[in-house]
Structures are given as structure tokens and as C-alpha cells.
């Protein structure tokens, strides 16, 4: 356990800190990843406040513009198109359900009448086929579009700042857990690459390379391979010092445990209080106390890990601006949804043409700010 502090002492002894940290940077400082995530998620929250297709489309366009202008040239930035496809699929599935399952909405504009499948008594309340009305479809479209917008916003966050970059900003005590999560996340892409490779290899054995049986047969080797790779990665991480701990006095350790456990209990109790009707009075204070204690525990727990951070992303004025622009959009739409619900939730019964409410639309355009205040991504070398 003594070895944890040795390198620091060595390093300090042999290498006196320079008078000023090296400031010159050949590359523009990237924006703090958390700023991108907050901005994207704020747009997502804004999307949940409205079903107006014009506003939702405007939200999608805003995030897409920023992504197109500012996403880095990295493989994970390409995940945006995957999210867009997923969003489209969600929208289509939602519409397909509306057509086949019908809906309790009392619509009058019948577009087509599908043959209704008679269902047994126990499936009462479920309808297969039957009338498809314009109202049902419109409602499903609005609803699906809202979900799709939310997904696209998450995709934008992913494309602009990969989750692994977020990891760097995690407090020391949580870092190791974070690494485990990230390693687990990279498991999936590797698995897909393996499946593709092994299915191709089936062709070399003279077996069809498509079909479910093919997939099942490569299943075991793929899992074996993925497991072996994970073990190899774990070995490499161990050999590179992952999980080194520093010596801390037992008193500090006990305090940490008490604070963290107590804090988490406080959070649970506080949340319960908030959610139940009679707990309204003690809910918020207990929750706040719990969060404070848990945070203090985390901070103290960070002492046990000697980790330092290489070039942490600075949280500067631009990060504030980006976050603020997202927050402004979310706040504006939340405010509008209360004060002008008619414009943000266009009527379905009776069918009305959605109009573009001026102020909320202008507010959404605030979300374009990051495309102008941040630096453009570097060209690939």
C-alpha cells in the first residue's frame, strides 16, 4: 500500500513545477463535454413540453445544424445518423400501431376501414383493425415525433461529446465505476463487429451466411471472444495501475462510509417524502441534507484514489453560454406550455392546422448559439 504515494514524491523531487503551466496549445480547446450534454438534454426537455410538429421540427433542425457544424471527425460522431434512423423507426412504429390497433379517440374523418379481427372476450378493450381516422393518425404522429425529437437530441449529445469524455469529469471516487460502465458500453460495438466477422467466416465453411441459424451458431464463439477480450483488457488495465489505492487513516474511511451511506438513505427518504402527499413538509430538507452528505462522502472518498487528471476540460465562458442557450430554450417552452397551451398542443379533435407560435419559435432559435460561440472541429489529419 506504500507504493501509491511513491511516484508523486519521486516526481515532485525530480521535477520541480514550472513557473507557469504550458499555455500554448496547437489545437483549439474543445468545449467541456458536460456543456454539450446539458445543451442537448435541454433541447430534449423542451421537446417534451410540446406536441406542435412545427416546433418539434424546428428543434430537430436546430440540433441537426449544430451537430453538422460542430461535431468532431471521430468514429463515434457518426452515431448521430444511427440515432436519426432509430428516431425514424420509432415514429413509423408508432404510426403502424395507431393504424393496426386503433385508438379510443372519437375521430370522425375516416381515411380507410381495415377488416377488424374478432378477438376473444378476455382481450376486451383491444381492437385489431377497424376504422383508421385522420385524428388517430395525427395524434400518433405528434406523439411519435415528440419521442423522435427526444432521441435525436440524445444522439446529438453523443455525437458532439462522446460519453467517454464525460468520464474524465467524474469525481475520483466514482471514476472506477465509470470505467466499468464505459468498458461495458464498448462491449456492444465490439460484439457486433465480431458477429459480422464470424458470419462472414461461415461463408468460408460453405454455410449460408444469413438467417437465424447462422446467428445462433456463431453466438457462442462470439461471446467467448468478447469475454476473452474483456479479460485481456482487464489484465492490461491492472498492469497499468488501474485501481491503485492510497493509504487513508481508518477514521477518514469510516467517516466516508457513514457520510455516503447516510446521504443515500437521506436521498431515499427525501424522495419518498416528496412523492407522498403527507411528506410535503420534510421532503425537501431531508433530500437536500442527503445530497449534501453523499457529495461530501464522495469528495472524501476521492482521497483514497491517488488518480490525477490529464488536461481536464476547462469549464469556461463558452461552456456557460452553450449551457445557458439550452436552458433558455427549455425554460421558454416550459413557460409557454403553461401560458399558451393551445399553441404548443395543437388540437386533434377537432383537427386544426398547427400554427407556429412566434415567441416559442424564436426561443428555440436561441439553441443555435453553440454553432457560433464554439470553435469548429479540427480537420482530420
Amino acid at each position, binding site marked *: 500500500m506504500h*507504493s501509491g504515494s511513491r511516484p*508523486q514524491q519521486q516526481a515532485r523531487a525530480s521535477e520541480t513545477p514550472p513557473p507557469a503551466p504550458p499555455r500554448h496549445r496547437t489545437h483549439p480547446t474543445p468545449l467541456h463535454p458536460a456543456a454539450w450534454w446539458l445543451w442537448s438534454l435541454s433541447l430534449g426537455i423542451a421537446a417534451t413540453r410540446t406536441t406542435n410538429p412545427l416546433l418539434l421540427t424546428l428543434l430537430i433542425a436546430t440540433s441537426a445544424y449544430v451537430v453538422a457544424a460542430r461535431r468532431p471527425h471521430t468514429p463515434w460522431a457518426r452515431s448521430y445518423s444511427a440515432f436519426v434512423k432509430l428516431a425514424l423507426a420509432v415514429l413509423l412504429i408508432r404510426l403502424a400501431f395507431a393504424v393496426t390497433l386503433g385508438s379510443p379517440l372519437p375521430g370522425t374523418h375516416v381515411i380507410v376501414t381495415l377488416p377488424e379481427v374478432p378477438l376473444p372476450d378476455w382481450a376486451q378493450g383491444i381492437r385489431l383493425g377497424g376504422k383508421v381516422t385522420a385524428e388517430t393518425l395525427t395524434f400518433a404522429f405528434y406523439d411519435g415525433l415528440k419521442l423522435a425529437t427526444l432521441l435525436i437530441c440524445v444522439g446529438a449529445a453523443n455525437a458532439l461529446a462522446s460519453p467517454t469524455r464525460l468520464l474524465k469529469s467524474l469525481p475520483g471516487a466514482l471514476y472506477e465505476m465509470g470505467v466499468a460502465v464505459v468498458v461495458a458500453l464498448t462491449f456492444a460495438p465490439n460484439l457486433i463487429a465480431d458477429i459480422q466477422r464470424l458470419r462472414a467466416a461461415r461463408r*468460408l465453411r460453405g454455410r449460408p451466411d444469413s438467417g437465424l441459424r447462422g446467428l445462433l451458431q456463431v453466438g457462442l464463439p462470439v461471446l467467448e471472444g468478447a469475454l476473452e477480450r474483456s479479460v485481456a483488457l482487464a489484465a492490461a488495465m491492472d498492469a497499468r495501475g488501474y485501481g491503485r489505492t492510497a493509504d487513508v487513516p481508518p477514521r477518514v474511511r469510516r467517516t466516508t462510509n457513514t457520510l455516503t451511506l447516510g446521504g443515500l438513505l437521506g436521498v431515499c427518504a427525501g424522495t419518498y417524502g416528496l412523492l407522498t402527499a403527507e411528506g410535503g413538509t420534510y421532503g425537501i430538507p431531508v433530500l437536500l441534507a442527503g445530497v449534501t452528505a453523499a457529495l461530501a462522502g464522495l469528495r472524501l472518498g476521492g482521497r483514497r484514489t491517488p488518480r490525477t487528471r490529464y488536461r481536464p476540460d476547462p469549464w469556461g465562458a463558452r461552456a456557460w453560454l452553450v449551457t445557458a442557450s439550452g436552458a433558455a430554450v427549455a425554460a421558454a417552452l416550459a413557460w409557454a406550455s403553461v401560458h399558451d397551451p393551445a399553441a404548443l398542443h395543437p388540437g386533434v379533435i377537432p383537427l386544426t392546422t398547427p400554427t407556429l407560435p412566434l415567441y416559442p419559435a424564436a426561443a428555440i432559435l436561441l439553441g443555435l448559439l453553440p454553432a457560433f460561440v464554439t470553435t469548429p472541429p479540427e480537420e482530420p489529419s
Partner: protein
Amino acid sequence: MIRFEDVSVTYDGATEPTVQGIDFEVPEGELVLLVGPSGTGKSTILNSVSGLVPHFTGGTLRGRVTVAGRDTRTHKPRELADVVGTVGQDPLSHFVTDTVEDELAYGMESLGLPPHVMRRRVEETLDLLGLTDLRARPISTLSGGQQQRVAIGSVLTPHPRALILDEPTSALDPAAAEEVLAVLQRLVHDLGTTILMAEHRLERVIQYADQIALLPGPGEPLSLGTPAEIMAVSPVYPPVVDLGRVAGWSPLPLTVRDARRRASDLRQRLAQAAGSRAAGAARVGAGGTPQARASETPPTATPTRRTWFRSRITPSPLPSPHAAEVQALSIHRTPTRALTDVTLTLTPGETVALMGRNGAGKSTLLNTLVGLIPPTSGTVLTGGTIPHRTPPHDLIRRVGLVPQEPRDLLYADTIAAECEAADADASAAPGTCRTLVTDLLPGMTGVPDDTHPRDLSEGQRLALALAVVLTARPPLLLLDEPTRGLDYAAKARLAAVLKTLAAEGHAIVLATHDVELAAEIADRVVLLADGEIIADGPAADVVVASPSFAPQVSKILAPQKWLTVAQVKAALGAPGPRS
């Protein structure tokens, strides 16, 4: 610096210790090469330095391993991370983060170095390894050589006093390997880093070694000595040493330069021998056609050749005179991996070596020939059919590919089941595949039928995959990087097998970085660069003309065109005209 005191390691479930009686010391600031045939426990020794054996792998370690005075028994790998850096065989499984700069910093972050120290060391390491232009690049977009350098850099930044490398150049093309080795030499010379390294391709690394630790066989004691001493007794040796033994030079030369300085006499003898037969220049110069090649094969190189396949395997008759034809083939995938306007014809009985940098398009070309990748433009005909439109069941009778990782071909959990499945896939008589396995590798008879393919050695696994492919008797056989991880003995066996197959009329294409293998068995060499064919001709001409793809023998005996020790041996051993 690194000290082994009577170490033996027994893995859980094994009856015999994997290594025993290991007792040696790697002095500070030296580069020690660990050599020996496959399966003698080299990786076990390497991993016991970093503490991964036994802390991570399990098993029992007897004796004592100390690094910089720290006993690995009481120190976990993570507590040795500041004195030992370990790079395994596959750099991709080593990376934790996803960009070059973060990867270099990762180890230091774990050790808790202050930020300004980290910043400086990252810059230094970027310069030292020539990675400055790649600093912000995602690791997955780098080439094999670049990845290997990043892996080495990532363990260098904590300034370890010892570096452990397991086959650092086996997956690299000759130029990338030299890049990596130059870096290692700089570390030893300039920073005084101690390096313990295992490598099968001795011809690449032997000149950098200060000492060699030899594991002659499983369970045999390790011996440590200067490269010249060890090479005199070693069962594994590079071609330059082989040539030195043939020519009777003492002390043995270890580098091409040493050998060249002594070779004037040998060159003269060879010129005479060749001149007396008036065939010296023609024999290698006309290696382009299989006929010439068959007559040219030196008799001494074929004593092990038996009628392995002749009775059982005859390639099915072809409608086309060519095993495969590729016309103006272009493939556009990502900008880095593509083929542009490739035209190539393969005739039965010829062996073609496909060479070029990592990522030059060798694997893409092989994959196109088996229909895994449809051509973007141009045509591909394999055995008269369009590969990507032919049903797999039909295609395996025309072309077979052994992929880079032979394990990809194997699904079953025993050798017997694998062979049965191969017979069924190819509609061959039951037992065909199993017989092939034994023919390819006589040593395999000793391996029980219920062994899991995973537990085979690299050479055995390759033999099994090759047998599975050959069960369908394809007239065109493709091998992607077959010698990765093979020791010299396994490589020699593979070469003999491929020669036999070629003599039976199989057309063979192998994508390889191994210049010695290409020199030994290829009639024709095709060089690829950036997806284009830049040279296509008889092996002797193409290979000798390129400094990085020339085998050692041709470098030593230039300007005469000799490629392998076997040729030289034959010329010296049979001075009279051949009957």
C-alpha cells in the same frame, strides 16, 4: 533489474509446470531477447514479471521474481505499474481510452502524477515515438504499426524502469516493424530502459539484443548468453545464422552486415557452382512459371515430401485455364481500405505472395476473391464463377480462404466435431478432414480428438483450419497472414505443405508480411500499396529490388539472386550438373 530465482509456474488444472527452474537476471539497461519454440512458456515468463502471473491468471508460482527490488508475490500488478510496463501481443486489447493523447496519459493518471509532469511527458513521448501528428486521432483509425507504437508509448509515459514486450512486431509489415524496433533501441540507448522481449521473427530483432535467454524446449532449463553463443546451439535461428552455419563461419554472423563482410568467398563459390551448371542466373530468374519452379526446387529441400495428398486429393477440373481472374477491380469502402483498378490472373500450380504495408488492401483482395466483398466496379471470376453471387456451398469447391485468425473458421468444441462438420459441409466422405489434419501435421495424431480447438497451439490450429478448408478440395487456396505467431519449425512445416499443394496443381495466394516465407515458397510476388498493384513479377526480381521486402539471404548475397538458405545449400551440396 529483473531477477528470477528458481521460478516454476503451474497453472490450475495442469499436471506439469509450464516453466520450471527459471533462474536468471536481466541487468539494468539491457535488451534481453527471450527465444524458443512455441509452447515453451515464453508468455508465462513475461507475464510473471508484471505480476499478472499469478495474480491475474491464477496458478502457483514457486521461487521468486523481483523487479527493481519489489517481489511480485507481495506486489499486485497495479503496484508494479510504475516500474514495469507491459505490452501484449494484441495492442487493441490493451487500449482503455479512445484517443492517442488520452491513452498516453492513462497510466500516469492511475499513478497520480501531477498534471504538469503528465503534460510534459506526453509531449516528450509523442516526439520520441513520432506520434505528434496523430495526437488527437481516435485509436481505432490508426494502422497496425501506429497502434503498436501507441501501445508502447502508453506504458512508457510513467517512466517504467523495465519494459516487457510480447511479440511486438509479429503483426507488422517490415517497415512498421523497423519503426517500432528503432524506438526500442532508442529507449535502451538514450533512457537506459531495461527491455525483456519475446519474438518469433528473430531476423528482425536479433541485432538489437544484448543477451538472449533461450528456452530450448518445454520443461528444459533456460540458458542465457550473448547472441553469438546462444545462436550456436539454438533450435530456432534466423536465416542469416542458418547461412552462417551452412558456410561454416565462426563466430556466427548475426546481422546482414556481418555476414556480407564475410560472404565474398561464399559468393565466389556460389558463382562457380552456378556457372558450372550454367543455370545459376536462370534458376531463380525464371521462377515465374510453375513448370520452371517444379524443376528448380532443390532436391535437398524435399526429403520430407511424401505423397500426402496425391492419392486422395486432386483438384477438380476447371472450366477456365485460370484459377481466378480479376479485371480492373475497384472497391470503395472507407477511403483508407480500398482497391483501385486491380488486374490479376492466377494460374493453377502457382504460388503468389501478396505483400505490402498494413492496410494496403491485401485482405480486401482476398476477401473479394471469396465473395465476402462485392466489387464496386470491375469483375472477379473465381474458378469461372462470380464469387459473391455463388452460393457458399458451391463456392467452397472452387476457392478456400484461411482467415487471419484461423479460429474464426472453427465453431465446434472438439477437433472431431469440427472435422465431421467440415466433411458434411463439403459433402466429402466421412473421415476426409481428420485424415487431412494428420497428413498436414503428423504431430497431431498425439492430440486427443476431444481437444477444444482453443487449446491447440497456433501451428496446430492453423493446420486444423487448413484441413477444414481443404476438405472441399478447392483448386484455389488463399491464406491471410498464415505465419503470425508461428515458430520456425511450424513455419517450415507450413512451407513444405504449401509446396506439396502447389505441386499438385493448387493455386495458392498468401497475403504475408513474412519476407522469408515469401522468398521460400512464392513463384510470384505481387506488391500492393494504397490499394494498387505496384509490382507483379517473379519472386526473385520483385523481392530483391525492394530493400524492405528482400529476405536476408538475398541481402547478403546481392547482386547474385539467391533467396533462401535451401537454394544455397543445394547449390553448394550438389556441385556437379543435376541429372
